[in-house]
């Protein structure tokens, strides 16, 4: 059916929610409490639109489309309504922008620039509430900045069903809190930081580290387990320092992770900053070793499809027995995003028919002189007596091995991985080149 929005015709279907139709057609409708994955709550009143035939402005998040509906989001009337609601949201808001991590990605700032631009008429004292409250799970709460959209409360009660967050008090004394002596404690807690449209819930891990307008982003996939949640890698490089990955943010994928990440995956960005900084070995030394007969290689099941194909071909070419082992943790998987298989591309190991039998692997090691570890966690810290171990590592590593070569991690070596449901996904590298070579480049040099 057709709708008329700001005198433009828009196509939509019976039963569609007006706010979704507007947002997906590029009509800017400010909103706090509505969220695609949490539904509507109707408490912020920011998404009000003018509908012909309705006496009062209606909230778009609770309005279903009807044939011939005429909507305005830009009339003088509705602009004044938006301005006045925004004024009330900002009334008791502390002037924290200068020290608030949300600055630059804050809905209040954005909406003020779009619909506000008024002078404050406040002449009475602001309402004071709690500040920098540590909720646990690396989440900081500032009750004064909160607009009580209740996204965080609905997340913990409806999505994780752990119910740690709630609203306490009443009226303008209402504030978000955890119960006394209790903590925010579930495997997905940090999602509330992303859900929060303002700086009320911030990441303790990211606190005061970087201004978001200095960050660049690249689309990537979390490598923490086989779910393959979609992420954005936020990184930058400041003068005189190395490039740094500052955080992962969830990237929407309605087939896999919607707009959520588990905390483990979210914080796994730290591994990307843990690069090899010691001196790498000589290329020629490895070439010499390749002449030996009894060679075995163990490859990480989190390598990309392209890397795995390269290792497979290389090992076939140089007559190296190739194995891989699962990253398996019975206690890690849950009913939502986390899987027991903690590798990101085990499906490709299986596709390439690489042996994963542990007994065979251990027997084969016993029989070999040369052990090549392609970034697999199992051999990253093990000391094998009487074996010559060569490490290809994407992270830091003690130099107690015969030869160590550093390779770029997945932030600098784009490719694709296949998740637990067989979905193949691309991930991309940042705009800076790693000082360590990409694995396939390195393997070329060994030919």
């Amino acid at each position, binding site marked *: 059916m057709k709708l008329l929005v700001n005198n433009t015709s828009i196509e939509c279907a019976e039963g569609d929610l007006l706010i979704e139709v507007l947002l997906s057609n590029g009509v800017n409708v400010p909103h706090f409490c509505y969220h695609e994955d949490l539904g509507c709550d109707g408490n912020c009143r920011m998404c009000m639109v003018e509908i012909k035939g309705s006496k009062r402005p209606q909230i778009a998040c609770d309005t279903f489309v009807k044939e011939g509906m005429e909507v305005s989001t830009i009339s003088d009337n509705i602009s004044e309504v938006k301005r006045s609601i925004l004024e009330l949201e900002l009334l008791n808001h502390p002037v924290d922008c200068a020290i608030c991590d949300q600055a630059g990605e804050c809905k209040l700032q954005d909406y003020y620039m779009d619909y506000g631009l008024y002078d404050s008429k406040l002449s009475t004292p602001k309402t004071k509430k709690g500040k920098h409250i540590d909720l646990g799970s690396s989440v900081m709460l500032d009750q004064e900045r909160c607009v009580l959209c209740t996204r965080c409360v609905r997340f913990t*009660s409806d999505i994780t069903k*752990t*119910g*740690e*967050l*709630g*609203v*306490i*008090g*009443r009226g303008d004394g209402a504030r978000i809190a*955890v*119960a*006394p*002596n*209790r903590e925010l404690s579930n495997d997905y807690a940090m999602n509330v930081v992303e859900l929060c449209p303002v700086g009320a819930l911030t990441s303790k891990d990211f606190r005061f580290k970087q201004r978001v307008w200095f960050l660049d982003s690249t689309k990537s996939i979390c490598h923490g387990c086989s779910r393959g949640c979609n992420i954005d890698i936020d990184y930058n490089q400041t003068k005189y320092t190395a490039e740094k990955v500052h955080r992962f943010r969830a990237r929407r994928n309605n087939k896999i992770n919607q707009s959520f990440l588990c905390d483990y995956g979210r914080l796994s960005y730290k591994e990307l900053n843990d690069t090899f900084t010691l001196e790498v070995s000589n290329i020629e030394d490895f070439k010499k070793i390749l002449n030996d007969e009894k060679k075995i290689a163990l490859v990480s099941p989190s390598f990309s499809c392209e890397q795995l194909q390269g290792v497979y071909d290389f090992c076939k070419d140089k007559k190296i027995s190739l194995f891989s082992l699962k990253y398996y943790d019975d206690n890690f998987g849950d009913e939502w995003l986390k899987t027991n298989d903690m590798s990101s591309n085990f499906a490709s190991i299986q596709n390439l028919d690489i042996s994963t039998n542990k007994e065979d692997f251990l027997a084969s090691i016993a029989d070999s002189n040369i052990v090549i570890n392609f970034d697999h966690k199992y051999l990253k810290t093990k000391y094998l007596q009487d074996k010559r171990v060569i490490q290809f590592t994407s992270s830091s590593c003690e130099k107690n091995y015969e030869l160590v070569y550093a390779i770029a991690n997945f932030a600098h070596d784009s490719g694709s991985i296949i998740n637990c449901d067989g979905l193949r996904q691309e991930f991309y590298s940042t705009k800076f080149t790693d000082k360590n070579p990409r694995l396939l480049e390195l393997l070329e040099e060994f030919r």
Partner: protein
Amino acid sequence: MSFSFNEENTLKIKTLIQSYPQKRSLILPLLWLAQKQDSYICDDAMQKISEIVEIPYMHIYSVVTFYTMFRLKRPQKRIIEVCRTLSCELNGSEEIKTYLDSNHSDEYEIIEVECMGACSGAPMCTLDGKYMENITKEELAKVLK
């Protein structure tokens, strides 16, 4: 401090569970039973209620903080509530409050409340929850000594 409902209340709870289609309706009645039994609602009482109705603890706490009649701290004195809304204010509730604050605040906890539905008996207050209407300073002096 561990909390458990006494025998009489435990029996009442059994009846209450039969009286509502879902257990969560019991949250307010159970909070009242706990407060009546203990004079306030302690953490363990909320924990116990959370277990009985099978609703997360935070929800119980959140409900308790919404309603003004629930106390989270044990009252140290008997409580006098003075109504401060319009009809009572028009009939001298402010003087009553000042009188009480100056003369009886050592022995009694004096709280201001909103309209108690006793406007024809203005000014009014409650003592231990019981309505006292058409009160005068003299009468209060007699009753509170």
